[in-house]
């Protein structure tokens, strides 16, 4: 089991570069959907378990658009817009009615949504594993020990551009300010004339658009399949619970951390554990938080 440990640190340390690069590519995609979840969770207290299915839906849309021979940036823009509209309609149909309900209700309703989406995608696109082949060259570095496909570099750059745009949008624009104000105190925001219902709708649609963009990148650099959504959901939950809400640098670093952890786990103890790794992290984070909370509780004995 631990043969690869020697490989990593004794025989060919250069493979570390490969693992780290893969982790960074993974983390960049996770960061997008995790930031979306952090927004929705922080602003409207909805825990969206369908997060991963939004990602996969974005990926399938990209697949359809790619079959029409559109270039990647155009696909990205179209998918983002479509997913924005989709998120808005989901908000109007479902989420609007559970915003002020108990938190478990949001978990269950979005789980139902996730079930619905994955099965609908399964019926429409079929259960095969699919991917977009961009037919781009691959860079071989360090005596062919490390391979870096161009598509991964492009998607990393795109993820960086999207993240930067989101940060600027949230800081500068009027809507971004309204979202942050609503997250801080919804009632006060309403008093000051912010239409919080519209802000909620926009936030949810924005999250859906971010997930869609992440889905495009996923379909370019890995594979998509209707039932892969839940693993992305679990990863984003792990990232957001680890980073805390409304903490963009925290979310990004946690995303890269989980990406790296996952790749190293896959390398050292075997790829079978790669899926279990983020779940373990999630449980670990929850337990550590609970121990910290216990320390703060005052018990009289």
């Amino acid at each position, binding site marked *: 089991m631990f043969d690869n440990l020697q490989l990593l640190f004794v025989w060919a340390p250069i493979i570390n570069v490969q693992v780290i690069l893969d982790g960074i590519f993974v983390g960049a995609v996770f960061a997008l959907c995790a930031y979306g979840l952090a927004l929705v969770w922080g602003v409207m207290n909805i825990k969206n378990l369908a997060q991963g299915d939004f990602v996969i839906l974005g990926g399938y849309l990209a697949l359809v658009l790619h079959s029409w021979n559109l270039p990647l940036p155009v696909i990205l823009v179209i998918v983002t817009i479509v997913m924005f509209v989709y998120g808005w309609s989901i908000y109007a149909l479902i989420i609007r009615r559970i915003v002020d309900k108990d938190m478990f209700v949001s*978990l269950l*309703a979005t789980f*139902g949504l996730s079930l619905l989406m994955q099965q*609908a995608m399964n019926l429409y696109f079929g259960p095969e594993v699919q991917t977009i082949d961009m037919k781009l060259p691959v860079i071989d570095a360090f005596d062919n020990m490390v391979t870096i496909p161009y598509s991964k570099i492009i998607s990393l750059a795109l993820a960086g551009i999207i993240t930067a745009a989101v940060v600027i949008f949230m800081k500068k624009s009027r809507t971004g300010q309204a979202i942050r104000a609503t997250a801080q105190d919804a009632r006060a925001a309403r008093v000051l004339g912010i239409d919080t219902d519209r802000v909620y709708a926009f936030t949810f649609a924005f999250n859906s658009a971010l997930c869609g963009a992440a889905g495009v990148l996923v379909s370019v650099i890995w594979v998509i399949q209707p039932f892969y959504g*839940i693993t992305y959901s679990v990863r984003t939950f792990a990232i957001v619970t680890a980073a805390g809400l409304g903490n963009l640098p925290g979310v990004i670093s946690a995303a890269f951390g989980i990406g790296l952890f996952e790749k190293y786990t896959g390398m050292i103890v075997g790829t079978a554990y790669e899926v279990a790794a983020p779940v373990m992290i*999630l449980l670990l984070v929850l337990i550590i938080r609970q121990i910290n909370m216990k320390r703060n509780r005052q018990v009289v004995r």
Partner: protein
Amino acid sequence: MMRRSTFITYAGLGLFGILGPILFPAYTLSIAYLWMMVLMASTWDILGGQMGYNSLGNITFFGVGMYVSAIIQIAIFYEPGVREYTSAMGAIKPEFTDQQYYWGIFLGIFGGAIAALALSLIFSTFMFGLRGPYFAIGSLGLAIAAAEITVTINYVGGASGISMPMFPGDIEFRSVFFYILCFILAVLAHLVIRGMLSTQFGLAINAIRDDEDKAEAMGLPTLIYKQIGWGVTAVFMGAIGAVAGNMAGFIDKEVAYPVPTFGIFMVAMVLLGGKGTLWGPVLGAIIFHIVKETTWTYLLGWQWVTLGLILIINIVYFQQGIMGWLQSKYPEMFGIVVDQSNINQEKKES
């Protein structure tokens, strides 16, 4: 003293339970699954409805019970051992005598229940500090992690699963046998829950649901109550898991840890029937099972989409469930005394 309506309900369900497989022999296994779902919903309600701890991970115990019983059934009467059996991937069909098979299955059910109980005690040491949605997410994580870890254990067949020992009797007797097991377990679970809720335990877990901090401040040993509640859930889930494994004949990750199906169905059934009531889960399970079987028959291919829709509509528009709705509509039927002045006051305020 049993109330008359309660007596009629018990008599009706009991008659259906006994006469069901005799009158409709073609549906024996389907009714067996109905009792299984009644058990799952009722045990979920101990934590979810009565105690306010919404667990999405009860299915872990189901899977653990299933695997433990498989190991026990194979290990005690098959000489070369479990590893030989699983590595052959179902090619080995050991000849068990009738007596060996039945001993194996009963010991398996027992062992599955004990293993699930032990696991629930281990989990409870770190899970019960989590509150509200964190408990739900954490328990969902437990179920997914358990499934992923099971796949990597080669001793129990890893990703290729285990095929269970062959049933010695003919196929009709087989379904009746498993039907009886499911029915007995469901009745047992219902009676145990009913008994527990009528004692101080029921009041204590309701206090935990309403305000855990106050309950603790009043001197209730909350952790012990939570452990008992989850332990009872785990025992029954482990036992029914063992039965379900033998009923299915072949177990792997998808059969043992059906997180997106039974793991969510049991919550949906409780919500449909009305959570926090004794009869809500039973009623919800029966209605849900009928709807499920009908969609399976008439909407094949779209059944999952329909189920997802039912789940969403149920949660978004009809949260209190059938029993909850009845309770608020006809409170006198449930022996609840409504203070009229309170209602008038609320009406004035709103």
